[in-house]
């Protein structure tokens, strides 16, 4: 029992150190030796948990995307209408991407590995499936237009939000990702929201964007 807890602590220490280094000098420039130094560990301890730098990266992708999925799910499992939870959920996830080191590093690795890594394919696939399901519900509830293809909308939302995060990272080191997300929604929503719900969602989005910019000032 004690040994298991210690081993878990070692593993997470390695992950934290790797994430720090990947964030500081990037994945390609980071050697396993650097990680061992940073974590103040023996080579044996590292190899006990991870057989290669790539398996370490896979673990970070999995851990990071699990955190993001969990945050999204905690919002969408609420009793609110589906489109409200989709919009709010995306803001919460985007916020986590810029504040949670492991989530952030996971996203970067996800992009770096993309098609070459099973964990990456699984993650993207899982997100689109979940978003498609939420979209279908929002169509049923009448907030999204009835003639839309749920799958296409789900993919478009995930794609454009990932793009917004990428753009924010490339231009401002992720600082105002929420602003990019708000902008993306502003363009996307009128294309998919039903006529009856459109003025409500204009306001909903404005409040959401305002709240997130206020939070960064207030907290």
């Amino acid at each position, binding site marked *: 029992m004690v040994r298991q807890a210690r081993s878990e602590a070692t593993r997470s220490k390695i992950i934290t150190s790797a994430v720090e280094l990947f964030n500081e000098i990037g994945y390609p420039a980071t050697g396993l030796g650097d990680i061992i130094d940073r974590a103040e560990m023996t080579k044996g301890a590292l190899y006990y948990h991870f057989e290669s730098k790539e398996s370490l990266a896979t673990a970070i992708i999995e851990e990071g995307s699990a955190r993001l999925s969990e945050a999204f799910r*905690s*919002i969408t499992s*609420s*009793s*609110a*209408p589906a489109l*409200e939870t989709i919009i*709010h959920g995306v803001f*919460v996830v985007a916020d986590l991407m810029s504040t949670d080191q492991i989530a952030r590093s996971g996203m970067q690795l996800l992009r770096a590995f993309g098609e070459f890594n099973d964990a990456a394919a699984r993650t993207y696939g899982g997100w689109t499936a979940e978003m498609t399901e939420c979209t279908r519900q929002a169509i049923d509830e009448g907030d999204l237009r009835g003639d839309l293809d749920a799958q296409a909308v789900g993919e478009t939302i995930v794609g454009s939000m990932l793009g917004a995060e990428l753009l924010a990272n490339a231009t401002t080191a992720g600082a105002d990702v929420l602003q990019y997300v708000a902008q993306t929604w502003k363009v996307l929503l009128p294309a998919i929201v039903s006529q009856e719900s459109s003025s*409500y969602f204009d*306001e*909903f989005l404005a*409040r959401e964007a305002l*709240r997130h910019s*206020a939070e960064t000032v*207030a907290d």
Partner: protein
Amino acid sequence: MTEQLDRRADTTRLQILRAASRQFARKSYSLVSLDDILADAEVTKGAMYFHFRSKHALASAIIEHRAAAGRASVDQLLARKLSGLETLIDISYLVAVEDIGDESARAGLNLLESIGRTDGLQGDIHGQWVTAFAAIARKAIRDGDLIADRDSDGIARLLVSMYLGLRQTSNLAEPERFLRDLEKLWVLVLPGFVKPERIDYLNQFIKRRTAVAMKRATPL
């Protein structure tokens, strides 16, 4: 070994609480007899007295149990980081849906009315609600939805009273009517503390919550 015994005792305790909730959700405190509960829970009188000294002790345990569950749901809602006022509205609908369809929620609130008044439990639990709601109302003031000089404790007390009163004047056995009455109350009280320019949006927010709650609420 003791761990196993503990677990069995916990199961029995839960079984009794569940059976008692079923009874108290449907009948008033004085009309429920311990024998009804024993028969429903399928436990012996001895087992029952091992866990609860009296009907009153059992009823207090249901109230406490429910209050803890309520606090957990509110924490979960707060973690969603909606605006303060939206959170308050969501809490009221969450409580209503559980009150309509969940035995332990219904029993907890029924008992709070009947036995809570005499032994101080009511004061405690209503006090906890008022404190929690007042904190959220202060957030709503910071969010800019509420008129700044309104008294957050007063708003919190009004909202708690509004819900407890609604339980008396409306009918939990008719979910549609109960939820529509809840909506009407919200629409009536909002102008008392919400900035005029925010009211249209919030009225719509409330209507949308009513629609979702109607789909989710199933009567006991």
